[in-house]
């Protein structure tokens, strides 16, 4: 066992533990914090996969995202409103069985998948490589994504804005 496998095992188990905790915890804030663990572990995995820029972006975005989600979770959840016991047990079981079937199928598929390792130079000036690809080859998707973000920004503001008369009523 070398260091890389060790690190992989640690990070992977942390990610899975975070996910499982998320499924089992009761409070929204707890759930979100357990997912922080998962997201950070995934960032670590990205570094292992020579994707340091993506890893940092992952940390940057998801630390902000989780913070916002926490705020929303706190604001939009009534005080004692913990995750109540699932009323719809049938659905839970059906979903569980479906996921298990899916998991098993995919598991079979993955174990049959034989990868050929190849030398890659992704870790050398990773950010520069991404920049080159992004601004040369994928410049149109990049611009489209920026448009999408703008639209989402405006849409979110419009949606979250309180209606005028409602505002008056509240005052």
């Amino acid at each position, binding site marked *: 066992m070398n260091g890389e496998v060790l690190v992989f095992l640690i990070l992977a188990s942390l990610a899975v533990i975070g996910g499982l905790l998320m499924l089992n915890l009761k409070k929204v804030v707890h759930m979100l914090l357990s997912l922080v663990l998962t997201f950070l572990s995934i960032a670590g995995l990205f570094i292992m996969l020579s994707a340091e820029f993506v890893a940092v972006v992952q940390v940057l975005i998801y630390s902000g995202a989780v913070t916002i989600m926490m705020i929303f979770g706190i604001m939009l959840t009534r005080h004692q409103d913990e995750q109540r016991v699932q009323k*719809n047990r049938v*659905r839970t079981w*059906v*979903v569980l*069985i*479906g*996921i298990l*079937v*899916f998991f*098993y*199928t*995919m598991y*079979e*598929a993955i174990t*049959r998948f034989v990868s050929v390792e190849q030398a890659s130079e992704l870790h050398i000036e990773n950010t520069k490589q991404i920049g080159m690809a992004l601004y040369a080859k994928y410049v149109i998707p990049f611009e489209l994504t920026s448009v999408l973000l703008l639209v989402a920004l405006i849409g979110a503001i419009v949606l979250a804005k309180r209606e005028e008369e409602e505002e008056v009523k509240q005052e």
Partner: protein
Amino acid sequence: MCDKLLPYAWLIPVFPFVSFIMLLAFRHRLQAYSSYIGSALTGLSLVAAIVVWVTGWSVQSVQHTGVWLAFESVELQMGTWITPLNLVMLNIVAFISVCVHIYSHTYMKDERRRSTYFAWLGLFTAAMLGLCLSPNLLQFYMCWELVGLGSFLLIGFHFEEDKAKAAAKKAFIMTRIGDIGLLAGLILLYWQTGSLQFTDIYTVISSGELEAFHVTLISLLIFAGAVGKSGQLPLHTWLPDAMEGPTPVSALIHAATMVAAGVYLVAVLHPLFMASDTALTVVAVTGGVTATVAAVIAIAQTDIKRILAYSTISQLGYMMLALGSAALAAGVFHLMTHAFFKALLFLTAGVVIHHFKTRNIHQMGHAFSELRFTGMTFLIGTLAISGFPLFSGFFSKEAVLSAVWHDERYLLFSLALLTTFLTAFYMFRLFFIVFMGQGKPTSGPKKALSMALRLPIAALSVPAIGAGFLYTPWFSAFGNWITQWQTAQIDPGHEVPWWMMPSAIMCSLAGIMLAWVMYQKLRVPLRELPYLHAFTLRGFYMDELYHYTIKQPLQFMSTTTVYIEKFVVETVMESSSSFVKWVGKYGARLQSGQVQTYGAVGFVGLSILVFILFWTGGYF
């Protein structure tokens, strides 16, 4: 000159239409001026009609049309069509309409809804004039229905009275029965000839391309429309009831113009009828029988307007008889003279009714001494309709008789002769009872007739006397003129047997004499023959016949179907709808609005598919 003025013939119906729109739109503001506006605008259209007549005297057939609607290859035309026949009709209609407008000025003076009345009159006149100008059957049909609408509105003008309401409805529905035939014939005609243009139809008929069967069928269907509109047997019952309308309306619509529209229809499509012997026979027989039966019914009536109404039916039968005997000129000629004297009779009858405040002739009498002018003019009308020599009716009736004789329909000829006798009888019965009878004189102050009443009556008296000289056995210019535009038509001429004229004169004089004897000399009431009297009084029980043969079975059928509807159809409907509801109710549970459930179902389905795909050796 005619080139310049004839294209403006479309203005003729526009004037009364403007009157209609104006009076309807500003009916409260123009209440006081409604009669002036109506009369003036109708007068304008009379002037226009006369101008067109004068300028178009020598015209055979001139069309001015424009495309109204175009569907792919089919073009519907609107416009005007000038032929001698149209000119005659136009002038008659415009003239009588003006007379009636002026007459109504006084007659409807106390009416609260004067402007509405004049508006309807304007609508009717416009529609009738438009009908006379129609270059094709479609426009003709539209105007035909508009005329029906105007008639409906005017009959039911006093819609606060139940009888008027019922009469209006009856008139509308009875004529509609004929109109269905007309519409069917129209569609069939279009199917067969590919055009509704009269001129095109003539061309097709003269080329002889149509099958005889189709010609007969089409002409009979179209004749059904004419039967309805012109009150021929068996669809005549609406006309006597239509007398509930104001008397000027009766004069205009139910004597001179609208009922003549059916005759005009047959006349304008005369080449079509000429192409089928069967159709001609049907027309002639219907006309002859109607003439006689209506005359018989008229004998027993006690309502002055009903007598005139039955006499109208009878005279219309004459016209149909003439047309059915291939004598277009005679038919149209009788139409013209009849329009004059019948309008005259109705207008004078209106004065009489106004005077006695009743329509029952037995409550009248001595009118001659009190209403001298009216009596004189009524006498003119009576003489004209009775076929008294040298009056207009004499010549036109004589023309009809000779046409029938010439067509070798001897039975119909004898019926026509009999009708002449009967006409003279019942008309003079009316005259003697009303004007010479012994009813007590009215006590009210004697008012001189106003000019507005006198003028139209006087104006109508002149043609009632003199119009006959236009077409006499020794002067057939009118006949040639009226028929010349139809190439297929040849004026049968007046090669009458020598005894024709004397026998006709004899018949009419005999009728007059009998009436004089019965009602003036001996005063024998007709009630002596109770069954016959009742039979004729009720118009041969026509209404009752319809009631029991058509209305009752229909009622029964409708009641039955109501029950079927209620218990059979409803049950089926109810059960099927409740089944659908049930399905919907339980189906809707699938759509619970739970996004996660949808997602779960979708995902489970996907995982099953992936599983199957994987184990059957899909993509992996």
